[in-house]
C-alpha cells in the first residue's frame, strides 16, 4: 500500500487520461483566440475591428467594452484587467478576444485588427524600476536583534549582490479552458487550473453573475508548478467571455509560444546583502534587501516576496537580521507562483553568503553550514519569531554525511582538480528548511464531500487539484485506510466547485495535509453514523455492542471487544441506508494556530517545517562551460510517508526543476522587452541526459510528523531548493580554475555562456 502507483497511471500510459483539450465537443464549439500587445508600454489611441469581424468564420470579437461585469482579474489586488482599456503595460497583455470556427481563421482575423498605438518608454528591469521608484505595493520588512550594532561588532564583513533569473513553468499542457453556457446565466468551465474556486470567482465577476451560476470542473492538469495558480484564470476568463457572448461553447488553448509570452514566470530577484561573521564562520548579522521584479500587476507577488523574506534564513540561525522586501513594478508580464514561491530566491541569498564565508575563511562550506544550523533547543528562533520545533537538520546531516562520503569525496575532488587543467570538479552540501502553510493564514482551510453508495463503494470529493503530484492517490490511500476498505472501492472524483466550494488553491505543498484531513473529518462523521446503525444491528441479537467499540478494518466493521462479531462493510452499508441514515458527509479542516502579522513582521506562519539535504558532485568543462552532475545524494524528510514512491518522485522531479532554474533555463529579452526564449527551441529545461549519473534519493526514516494526516509531511516544493548543491558545486569547480584564489561571480542561472564569462573574468584577474 505504501507505494501504490499513481491512481491515473494506467490512464496516462494508455493515452486515455483526459485533459481539457481532449474533452469531446460538438461541431458548434468555437475556438477562442487572444490578441495581445506587442508593446511593453503604449497608449491605445484607436482601433478598428470592422474588417476583421467580417472575415470568414469569425463569430465574435470582444474588447474591454464588451465585458458585462468587472474588467478585473487580479487575484488579490485588483490591478489586472481582463482586456486592456486605454493602455497596455506589457507585451502579452490581452486586448481583444476572437471566437471563430477554427484557429486559422481567428489568426487571419487578428492580423486585420488595426490598433493605433502610441509607444511610451517602458520599465524593463529591476534597476530601471528602482530609478523610477515605482513599487507595486508598500515595502515590507522583517527584523530581529540589532543589525547595525552586530555588524559593527563583527570581525569580518562580506557584502554583495545576487541576481536570480526568471523561470518559465513549462508545464507540458499549456493553459486551456472550455466554457459551456447553460440555461440563463449558467456557465460550466472546464479549466486546467490549480485554483478552481478562484477561477469560478473571476468568471462570475467578469460576467457579472452570481457564483452559484458558475461550475468549475477539473479532472487533472498536465503540470502546474504554480503556473496555473492564478494564470489559469486568464484562459478561463477569456473563454467564458466569448462563450457568454456567443451563447455557445468556446475552447481556448494557448499555443506554446503564446503561453510562454503571455503568462507570468518565477520572479527575478536582485538581492543585496551585508553579513557579519566571526573567525569560525558563525554569522552574527545579515542585512538583506530583496528586490523582485513583479511585472506590471501585483498578482501573488506580495505573498511570494513574503515567502522569500521568510526563507532568507533557510536553515541557519542569525541572531540579528533585517530583511527588506521591495516588489518593483515593471512593464513585463506579471510574475507569479512557481514551486517554492519565493523560497528559492530567498534561500539563494543566504546560501551565497555561507558559501562566500567559507571561501573567505578558506574552510569547507559544509562546516560553515553546520555551525550555523538552527539549534535543537537553543538558537532556534527565526527572525519572525517562530520557534523551530522538531528540527531534523542534525539527523539529516549525520546520515547524509556518512552515506554520501562527503568528506572523502571532497578530498578526491581537490586531487582531481590539481591534476586536471581543463576539467574541474566541485562538490557541495546544502540544506533546506521550508515552512509549510500558506503565509496568508485564511487560506489554510480545506473541504471535502464523501459519499458512500449502497454497494459499499466510496466516492471522495475534495477541493485539491491533481496535477501529477499524486494528491488523489494519497487521498485514496487515506480514505481506504480510514474506512478500512480496499483501494479498489474508493474513487477520488474530479475537482468540482459545486461539490466542494470556497477552497484554496492547491499550492504551498499543502494539498495532502489539508485535504487529507478534511476527507478524514468527513469519514469520521460517516463512520460514526454507520457505527451507530451497525451497533443497533449487532444488539438485535441481544449481545451488547457499544458503537464506540466498532472499528473499520480489512473490509469489515468489527466489534473490537468481541472480534467474532463483524460484518462486511459492503453488507453494512445497505443496512444503514434502510435505516434512513445519510451516507454522504462533508468534511472540513483548518490548520490550527498559524498566524502572521505583516505590519510587525512577526508571528508563527508555519504549522511545521520540512527539511532536506543534498550532496552533489559536478564536473565543469572549463573550455565549453558544459557541466555534468556526476552524483547527487538526497536525504529528505517527509515524516511518515503516505506513499514513498510518490514522495521520491516529487523529490527527483523537484530537484531537477531546481537544477534547470540554476543552470540552463534562461529568459533573455531584447531592448523593447520582447522575450527571446519564447519556445523550447531556445528555452531549455532539463532533458534525460541532464540527470545525475548517480541519483540517490532517500527518505528520512524514523521521524514521524506529529499532528498531521497519518504523520506525513508536505513534499511538493522543498526539494526544489536542494538544487543549490549543484549550483554551488559548479561554483567550487570554477573557483578551482584559479586554485580558489579568485572568487567567481555566481548568479542564477549559470548557463554555459555565463560560466565561460565568469571564467574569463576570473582568469583575467589572475594575470
Amino acid at each position, binding site marked *: 500500500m505504501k*507505494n501504490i*502507483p*499513481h491512481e491515473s*497511471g*494506467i*490512464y*496516462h*500510459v*494508455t*493515452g*486515455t*487520461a483526459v*485533459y481539457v*483539450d481532449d474533452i469531446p465537443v460538438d461541431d458548434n464549439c468555437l475556438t477562442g483566440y487572444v490578441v495581445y500587445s506587442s508593446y511593453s508600454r503604449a497608449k491605445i489611441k484607436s482601433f478598428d475591428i470592422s474588417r476583421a469581424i467580417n472575415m470568414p468564420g469569425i463569430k465574435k470579437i470582444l474588447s474591454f467594452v464588451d465585458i458585462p461585469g468587472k474588467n478585473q482579474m487580479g487575484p488579490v489586488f485588483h490591478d489586472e484587467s481582463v482586456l486592456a482599456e486605454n493602455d497596455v503595460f506589457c507585451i502579452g497583455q490581452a486586448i481583444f478576444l476572437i471566437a471563430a470556427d477554427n484557429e*486559422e481563421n481567428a489568426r487571419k482575423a487578428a492580423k486585420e485588427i488595426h490598433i493605433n498605438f502610441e509607444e511610451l518608454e517602458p520599465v524593463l528591469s529591476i534597476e530601471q524600476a528602482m530609478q523610477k521608484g515605482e513599487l507595486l505595493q508598500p515595502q515590507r520588512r522583517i527584523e530581529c536583534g540589532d543589525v547595525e550594532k552586530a555588524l559593527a561588532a563583527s570581525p569580518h564583513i562580506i557584502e554583495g549582490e545576487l541576481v536570480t533569473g526568471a523561470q518559465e513553468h*513549462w*508545464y*507540458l*499542457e499549456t493553459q486551456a479552458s472550455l466554457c459551456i453556457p447553460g440555461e440563463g446565466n449558467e456557465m460550466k468551465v472546464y479549466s486546467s487550473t490549480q485554483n478552481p474556486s478562484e477561477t469560478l470567482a473571476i468568471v462570475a465577476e467578469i460576467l457579472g453573475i452570481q457564483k452559484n451560476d458558475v461550475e468549475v470542473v477539473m479532472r*487533472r492538469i*498536465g*503540470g*502546474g*508548478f504554480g503556473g496555473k495558480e492564478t494564470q489559469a484564470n486568464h484562459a478561463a476568463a477569456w473563454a467564458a467571455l466569448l462563450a457568454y457572448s456567443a451563447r455557445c461553447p468556446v475552447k481556448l488553448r494557448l499555443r*506554446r509560444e503564446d503561453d510562454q509570452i503571455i503568462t507570468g514566470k518565477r520572479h527575478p530577484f536582485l538581492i543585496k546583502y551585508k553579513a557579519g561573521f566571526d573567525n569560525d564562520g558563525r554569522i552574527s548579522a545579515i542585512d538583506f534587501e530583496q528586490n523582485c521584479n513583479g511585472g506590471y500587476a501585483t498578482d501573488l507577488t506580495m505573498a511570494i516576496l513574503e515567502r522569500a523574506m521568510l526563507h532568507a534564513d533557510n536553515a541557519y540561525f542569525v541572531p540579528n537580521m533585517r530583511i527588506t522586501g521591495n516588489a518593483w513594478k515593471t512593464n513585463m508580464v506579471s510574475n507569479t507562483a512557481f514551486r517554492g514561491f519565493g523560497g528559492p530566491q530567498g534561500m539563494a541569498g543566504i546560501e551565497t553568503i555561507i558559501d562566500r564565508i567559507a571561501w573567505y575563511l578558506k574552510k569547507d562550506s559544509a562546516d560553515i553550514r553546520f555551525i550555523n544550523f538552527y539549534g535543537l533547543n537553543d538558537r532556534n528562533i527565526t527572525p519572525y519569531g517562530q520557534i523551530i520545533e522538531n528540527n531534523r537538520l542534525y539527523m539529516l546531516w549525520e546520515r547524509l554525511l556518512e552515506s554520501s562520503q562527503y568528506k572523502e569525496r571532497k578530498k578526491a575532488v581537490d586531487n582531481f582538480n590539481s591534476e586536471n587543467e*581543463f576539467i574541474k570538479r566541485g562538490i557541495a552540501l546544502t540544506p533546506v528548511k521550508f515552512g509549510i502553510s500558506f503565509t496568508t493564514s485564511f487560506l489554510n482551510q480545506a473541504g471535502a464531500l464523501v459519499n458512500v453508495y449502497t454497494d459499499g463503494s466510496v466516492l471522495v470529493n475534495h477541493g485539491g487539484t491533481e*496535477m*501529477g503530484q*499524486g494528491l488523489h492517490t494519497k487521498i485514496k490511500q487515506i480514505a481506504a485506510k480510514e474506512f478500512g476498505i480496499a483501494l479498489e472501492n474508493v474513487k477520488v472524483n474530479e475537482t468540482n466547485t459545486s461539490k466542494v466550494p470556497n477552497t484554496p488553491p492547491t499550492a504551498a505543498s499543502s494539498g495532502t495535509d489539508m485535504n487529507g484531513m478534511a476527507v478524514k473529518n468527513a469519514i469520521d462523521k460517516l463512520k460514526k453514523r454507520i457505527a451507530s446503525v451497525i451497533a443497533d444491528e449487532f444488539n438485535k441479537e441481544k449481545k451488547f455492542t457499544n458503537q464506540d467499540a466498532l472499528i473499520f478494518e480489512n473490509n469489515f466493521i468489527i466489534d473490537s471487544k468481541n472480534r467474532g462479531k463483524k460484518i462486511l462493510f459492503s453488507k453494512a452499508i445497505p443496512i444503514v441506508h434502510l435505516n434512513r441514515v445519510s451516507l454522504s458527509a462533508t468534511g472540513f479542516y483548518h490548520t490550527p494556530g498559524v498566524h502572521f502579522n505583516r505590519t510587525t513582521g512577526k508571528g508563527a506562519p508555519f504549522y511545521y517545517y520540512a527539511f532536506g539535504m543534498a550532496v552533489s558532485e559536478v564536473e565543469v568543462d572549463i*573550455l*565549453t*562551460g558544459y557541466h555534468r552532475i556526476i552524483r547527487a545524494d538526497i536525504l529528505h524528510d517527509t515524516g511518515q510517508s503516505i506513499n514513498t*514512491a510518490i514522495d521520491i*518522485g516529487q523529490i*527527483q*522531479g*523537484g*530537484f*531537477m526543476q531546481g537544477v534547470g532554474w540554476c543552470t540552463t533555463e*534562461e529568459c533573455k529579452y531584447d531592448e523593447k522587452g520582447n522575450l*527571446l*526564449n519564447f*519556445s*523550447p*527551441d*531556445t528555452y*531549455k*529545461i532539463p*532533458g*534525460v*541526459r*541532464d*540527470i545525475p549519473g548517480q*541519483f540517490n534519493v532517500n527518505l528520512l526514516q524514523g521521524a514521524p510528523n506529529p499532528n498531521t494526516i497519518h504523520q506525513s509531511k508536505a513534499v511538493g516544493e522543498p526539494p526544489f531548493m536542494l538544487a543549490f548543491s549543484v549550483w554551488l558545486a559548479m561554483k567550487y569547480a570554477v573557483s578551482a580554475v584559479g586554485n580558489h584564489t579568485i572568487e567567481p561571480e555566481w548568479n542564477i542561472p549559470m*548557463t554555459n*555562456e*555565463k560560466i*565561460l*564569462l565568469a571564467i*574569463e573574468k576570473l582568469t583575467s584577474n589572475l594575470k
Partner: protein
Amino acid sequence: MNHNKIAFVLDGKVTEIGFRNSPYYPTTTLLQYLRSLPGHKGTKEGCNEGDCGACTVVIAEPDGSNKLKYNAFNSCLIFLPQIHGKYVITVENLGTPQNPHIIQKALVDRHGSQCGYCTPGIVMSAFALYKQCKTPGYEEILDALAGNLCRCTGYLPVIDAIKEACRFNGKDHFNAEEPEIIRMLKNIRNNTSKTIKIEKNECCYYILADIKQIWSILNNSKEHYTIVSGNTDTVLRVNKKHESLNRLIDISNVQQLKKIDIKKDYIIIGSAACIEDIKSAVKNIFPPFYNILKIFGSRQVRNQATLGGNVASASPIGDTLPVLMAYDAEVILQSQNHTREINIRNFITGYRTTQIKYDEIIAGIKIPKLPPEKIVTAYKISKRRDLDISTVNVAFCLELFQNNIVKQIELFYGGMSAWTKRAVNTEKFLTGKQWTRENVEQAMNFIEEDFTPISDARSGAPGRSIMAKNLLLKFWNDVKKCN
C-alpha cells in the same frame, strides 16, 4: 490509387484520406489529424515544433526482410502525405487500461508518470526502442528518450521502467500482426501511381516515388516549389510562421535518394537518407561526423531529418556544415540532363543561400576519406547537450609536418557569422608555426579579427567569442591526447 488521395494503415486497418472531401490539407500535420479523430487524443501537443516529444508516434515500414521496422517520430513535424503507404501506431494501439502493453505496465509499476501529459510520447519512444533493441544499455535508453521532455519526474523512474520492460525482448501482439500489415502496405504501394498529385484549394502537393518525375514538374512550372524531404524545418513555416505553402514536392518516399554508398575512398550519402541511418553508417569511417550526428536533434528528429535538408537550408548553425566542410565534401546537384558536383565550401553563398538552381535538386553528398595525416575534429556547444541547436559549432582539419610545424590548418565555424565560415586570419597565423599551446593561445586572439558574432537568445556575442576561441584550445588539447 489515384490523385488527391493517400492511404496508410492506422488501427490495423487501411485508412484513406481523400483531400477533396475532407477537412484536411496536404499540410495538415499528422498530429492535427490524429487529434481530430475521436480515438487518438492520447497523442498530445506540447510544443508543435519537435522540441518536446509529447506527440511521438511510431511509424513502421517493411525492412525488406518481411519484418517491420519501428521508428519514433514527432507527429507535429509530419505532413499527412508523408505517411502514405506507412503504418502509423499511436499510444492507443499498444494497449488498454484493462490490457496494457509491457512498456505501459512497467511505466505504471515504476511510477514513470506524474502529470501524464508527456507520458504517451515517452511510451511511444520506449516502444520503438523495445521493438528495435533487445536489452538496451543505459546509454541507449537515454538516447531513445532524449527527445522527450518531462517536467515532473526527473526521468529516473522512466529509465528504470524501460530497462525493466526491455527484458521481454520485443515480444508483444504486434509480432503476430506483421505479415498482415506488410500485405496491406504492399497493396497500398502496388495500387499507387508513381506520382500522386494532391490539389486542395490553392495548394498543390506532389508525392514522388521516382525522382525522374520531378523534372517535368520543375521544368514546366514558373512557380517555386518547396521540396519536402525530412520536413523537420519546412513544417515549421506552417506550424510556427503560419505560412500557406502551396507548391510542394515530397521526395521523402524516393528510395533512390536514401542510399548510403560506402566506397573505398569515399562515401556517397543520398540527400534523403535520414540522419539516424547516416549516423550508424559513418560511425567507424568518420568518427567526428558521427559525434556531431549523435547529438543532432533527438532520435525522433534524426529518424526524419535528412542530410540534404540540413545542407540545403544553409543555416548559419547547421549542425553538419562545418564537419562536411572540414572533410572537403562535394554536393551532388542533379537536374534533368546534368549532374554536377560543387564543393560544399563554395556551395553556400550567404545567409541561407546556396548555388542550387531552380531546376536542380541535391542528389547526394560525397565525403572523401582523408589521408591519415589529416586530423579532423568537430565540436558543438549548445545550452543543453541534447536536442538543442548550436550556439557555436566547429570543425577543424589539421595537418602537421614531422617536426610539429603546421602544414595546413582549416577552421570552420558555425554560429559566428551569417553562414558557416573559415577563420582565415587564425589559420594564416598558425600555418607554418609550431603546433604548441603558446602558438594556439596566440592564434585564439585572431578569432576576434575573423568574426563579429551576434547576440541572440542562445548567447551574447562575448560568450560566442569565448566559445570560438576555447574550442581551438580544446582541439589542441585533444590532438595532444591522441598523440
